[in-house]
């Protein structure tokens, strides 16, 4: 187990290092001079020089990279070009909103996906299965930036039940969470269906049935717990859908989280903030996936034993 943890940690560190390098390189992708892009072409020479020094762009790339990592390790993500505040502070203000939204969407997607997936698996090939999978296919094909406005149209404008946008109490969270959760639910329900179908063919299910357990008892006591393991890993991977989708969903609903901050900073050409947002979102994803893998290995000895032999 220790060897597995170390190997997994090592590969995570390499990925984290690579992600940080790539995010660092982003600013060098700006066509032409990034300073010109930020200040416009009519800026004074002195202003340009000052900004160049503030960003450290006057130094060789190697030194810049080194400085970047030294600051990163000290938890210093630079200063916003726009508001002059430390980027860490800006991020800290926005994190709670995104975490709230992510948790709510995860709950909603589980509430939709589990019934849908289970119904489909238990009725494989019948009308129920086809309907459930049709609904899920529809969910995959409707992008956030369409579902969001449609939900606003129905529930905020026509019915007037829910606020259009902003973050003001639990009620305002419903529409963004449903928008974000639906995309995840669509993918998740397909996975639950296929995993459950695999488990239902196992011998221990037949044994449990032969012992005289009722069908639903077998599904709930034997099939679901065994199907949970792969589902949890897939859930970790699908968190990417959630985090990536949050950028668009938060923009649709003016939800003041990290995703909206990313887009706002892109519009303001506030490069340090863009870099920090991208770094934060990807690192969260990497760490969550590492933790899922470790938990999986801890629960299922087949993984860690297979790895070390």
């Amino acid at each position, binding site marked *: 187990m220790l060897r597995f943890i170390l190997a997994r940690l090592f590969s995570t560190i390499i990925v984290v290092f*690579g992600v940080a390098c790539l995010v660092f390189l982003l600013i060098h992708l700006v066509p032409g001079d990034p300073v010109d892009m930020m200040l416009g072409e009519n800026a004074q020479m002195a202003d340009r020089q000052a900004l160049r020094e503030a960003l450290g762009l006057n130094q060789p790339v190697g030194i810049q990279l080194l400085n970047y990592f030294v600051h990163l390790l000290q938890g210093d993500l630079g200063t916003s070009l726009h508001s002059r505040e430390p980027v860490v502070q800006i991020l800290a203000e926005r994190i709670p909103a995104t975490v709230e939204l992510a948790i709510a969407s995860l709950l909603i997607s589980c509430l939709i996906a589990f019934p849908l997936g289970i119904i489909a698996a238990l009725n494989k090939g019948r009308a129920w299965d086809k309907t459930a999978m049709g609904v899920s*296919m529809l969910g995959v094909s409707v992008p956030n930036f*369409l579902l969001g406005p449609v939900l606003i149209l129905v529930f905020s404008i026509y019915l007037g039940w829910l606020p259009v946008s902003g973050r003001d109490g639990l009620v305002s969270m419903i529409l963004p969470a449903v928008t974000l959760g639906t995309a995840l639910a669509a993918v998740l329900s397909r996975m639950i269906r296929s995993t459950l179908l695999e488990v239902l063919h196992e011998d221990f299910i037949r044994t449990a049935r032969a012992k005289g357990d009722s069908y639903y008892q077998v599904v709930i006591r034997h099939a679901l717990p065994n199907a949970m393991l792969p589902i949890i890993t897939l859930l970790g991977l699908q968190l990417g859908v959630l985090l990536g989708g949050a950028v*668009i969903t938060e923009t649709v609903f003016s939800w003041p989280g990290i995703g909206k901050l990313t887009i706002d900073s892109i519009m303001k050409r506030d490069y340090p903030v863009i870099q920090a947002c991208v770094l934060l*979102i990807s690192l969260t994803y990497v760490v969550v996936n590492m933790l899922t893998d470790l938990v999986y290995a801890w629960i299922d000895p087949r993984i860690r034993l297979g790895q070390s032999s």
Partner: protein
Amino acid sequence: MNRVNLSVGIMIIWVLGSLIGQWLPLDVNQIHLEAILKTPGADNWFGYDDLGRPVFDRLLSGSYTSCVVALTVIALSVSMGTVIGTLSAYLGGGFDHIITRIIDIFLAFPGILLAIALAGIMGPGIDNVVIALSVVGWVGFARLARAQTLSVKHREHVIAAEVMGTGRMKIIFRHLIPLISTPVLVEATFGVASVVIAEAGLSFLGLGVQAPDASWGSMIRDGTRYMLVAPHLVLIPGLALMTVVLAVNLAGDRLRDKLDVKMQINKSGV
């Protein structure tokens, strides 16, 4: 079978509509002041937008945008990804190790995030959208091609070719890539659907096509401001987008089932 015909039919309409729209006398940017925000009616099926431009004409023009972007991005991603993935698996060793790490690093950026950051930093414009989506898109194909090649590179015909002294490049292009093309083709079909969504998403965020050019994504964004009076500005491009994506996904599903030899054996066995 009917559903397959329907989805293939929708895809054909999408591509043909995009192409034909290019040389039809469309009023894409023609402003009709008297028709501002006019909702669909008997004389005009799709209505007019907030500047009095006909939604139908803009829909066709947006269709061209999504079609061209999707096909270009997929062509670039599939060719780059397949060659890199196959090379990586076939050559093995240090090269394979480095490629695997690079793939892992790219996959660490969730969903559309890296494309948003790239397009955002390079500046808005449809060229940058194509670049951003291709830079992100090759990774999935490389991973797939690598995994597939690993499972077929010890087949007899490859070993026979090696023994006969065939060059590595010839083995890769003549003996490996054709063998792994089936799963790559299925993946490419799903890829088209996700690129259509991604392009519309980037345009929705204002990072894609620039006004006055039309894209389904930018049409939806402009429409959200007038949702109370003219919901058709969101619903029409939205429905078009959804229909195309759904059709492509269904076709991909069907293609996968059809090409999946394992599943067919199971079916005939029962």
